[in-house]
Structure formats: structure tokens, C-alpha cells
């Protein structure tokens, strides 16, 4: 888990507040006598400033945490299950599929480190299947095929 230290977070928040404050001041001053369209544009500028001021890495971390939590829940709830369908229909697994394309690098990394039957999710999200028919069910070969697929696309490190 990547945890940001307070010494790294503090400047980010100061910068964030500073940017949002600047936008608000700009909005307040320029709103005097401005047209409705201009006011609306200023509001959008304020929103955008706030959005882009937050580091993308923080948003990724929260998604990564959500993925880890869901993956753990899925493993715990389906460890005794032989049915591929039942394992894939597990609510935690479905929630991971619901995360869409951004989940693929996290799934591939988890697959590389911990294994696990991630193949249904990978196929459902990517709409691709690099496993040749004769290797279906051969977990080692399926894992290898999907990791190679991910490496080719730059989604997981080699």
C-alpha cells in the first residue's frame, strides 16, 4: 500500500486551497456587473480549479484501496466455491467489474502477485480473451496469457 506522508500532503492541500481561493476571489470581484453567461463561466472555472488542484495520485489511491477491499472480500466469500459462475456473480467481484477499464491494471497486478480467478472479469471488461481454446481451464496457462496480454498493452509491468 502506498501511503503518502503528511510532509508530502501538506503542500498539496495548501496549493489546492490557494487555487480555489484565488478562483473564488476572481469570481467575486469580476461578478460585479457581469452578465449571467460570464458568471456561469466563472463558476465553471472555479469548479475546474478545485477539481484539477487535487492530485490524481490521491484519487488513484482511493480506487486502489477500494479494489483491495473488494478483492479481499471476494476471496473470503468464494474460497470454497467451485462454480465459476457463482464466484463471478459475487457482489464484490461484480463491483470490481463495475469499476471498468481502470480496474484492469489493478487486476493484472493482483493476478501477478496473488493469482486468483480474475479471467471472467478481465474478459468482461476488456472484451478480449488472449487464452487459446485448448488452454481454457489450465490456470497456469490462463494466467500467463493474460499477463502477457497486459504487458503487451503496457497495463502491467513485465
Amino acid at each position, binding site marked *: 500500500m502506498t501511503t503518502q506522508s503528511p510532509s508530502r500532503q501538506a503542500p498539496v492541500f495548501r496549493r489546492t486551497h490557494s487555487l480555489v481561493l484565488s478562483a473564488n476571489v476572481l469570481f467575486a470581484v469580476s461578478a460585479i456587473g457581469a452578465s449571467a453567461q460570464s458568471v456561469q463561466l466563472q463558476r465553471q472555472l472555479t469548479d475546474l480549479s478545485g477539481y484539477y488542484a487535487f492530485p490524481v495520485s490521491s484519487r488513484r489511491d482511493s480506487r486502489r484501496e477500494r479494489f483491495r477491499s473488494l478483492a479481499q472480500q471476494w476471496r473470503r466469500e468464494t*474460497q470454497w466455491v467451485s*462454480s465459476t459462475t457463482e464466484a463471478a456473480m459475487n457482489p464484490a467481484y461484480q463491483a470490481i467489474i463495475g469499476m471498468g477499464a481502470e480496474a484492469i491494471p489493478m487486476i493484472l497486478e493482483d493476478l501477478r502477485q496473488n493469482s486468483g480467478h480474475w479471467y471472467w472479469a478481465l*474478459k468482461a471488461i476488456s472484451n478480449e480473451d488472449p487464452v487459446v481454446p485448448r488452454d*481454457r*481451464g489450465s*490456470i497456469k496457462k490462463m494466467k500467463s496469457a493474460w499477463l502477457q496480454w497486459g504487458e503487451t498493452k503496457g497495463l502491467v509491468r513485465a
Partner: protein
Amino acid sequence: MTFSDLVRAMQVRFPNLTVENSRPTSAYDEGYNCIAWAAEDTDYWWWPDVMGQHYWPPDVPREETLDAFVRAYGMKGYTQRCDSTMEPGRQKVAIYVASSGKPTHAARQLLDGWWASKLGQQIDIEHEFAALDGPAYGSVAVVLARTAT
């Protein structure tokens, strides 16, 4: 974690399972499941999933029905329906179904009359016939036999 601890943890899903009516025989292995293990295959995960992810015998309908599972084991020679008693010269597999009627699990009879099961991605165990009955796997719907090879 000892097998005793594991059994205690499993009893929520397998209320009949005890350390007296079961014993562990392998470590965790995600490479095959109970359906494969009953067919004596440790190289593939068997399941007729609609996504076509896992192995299913060719020429058997890829559907989660008891009939499809009976036909899958038929490809391995298990064609005679029977009961769970031990009979010299005959090998048996048992297919479990949930209350929905969907297959959930399979076990293979051993020479001492106990049954060999792979528990999902988890361990292999040997157990008495009714030890796995319960909310996780339901109960045995069909026992099939073939002449011992």
C-alpha cells in the same frame, strides 16, 4: 492454522464437518476444482461457465444442469446410477446440487469408503459421505459408478 482451526472456520458453511469425519490431504491449490478432482484431473479447472473460461468436456452441453454434469462424468465412464455404499470392483462419484437444482460440487469415493473432495480453490480433504451436506454445497443428488480400472 491447524486443520482443527480450519474446520471450525468452515463449519458456518459446512455444519456437519468435523475433525472426526474429515482429514486434509493437500494444501491450497487454485489450479483445479472439485469437478476436476472427482474426474482425477489436477491440471484443469472444470466448469461449464457461459463465458467459456474453463474446461468442459467436448460434446457435453455447456450448461449448469445436473444432466450436463452426469453426461460429463459419463465421458469418464461413470454411466451407472447407484447408491453411495462401497462396492468392490466399482468406482463412484457423487454430484451435489443446491436447493436451486444447480450443481455445486462433486466427490470421488475412495477404497476405504470415504470420499475425496477439493473445496473450491482451497484444500483437498477426505471425508465421510454426508460431511459436506449443508448451505455451501447442498446435498448429493446423484451417485454414478463405473467398473474399477
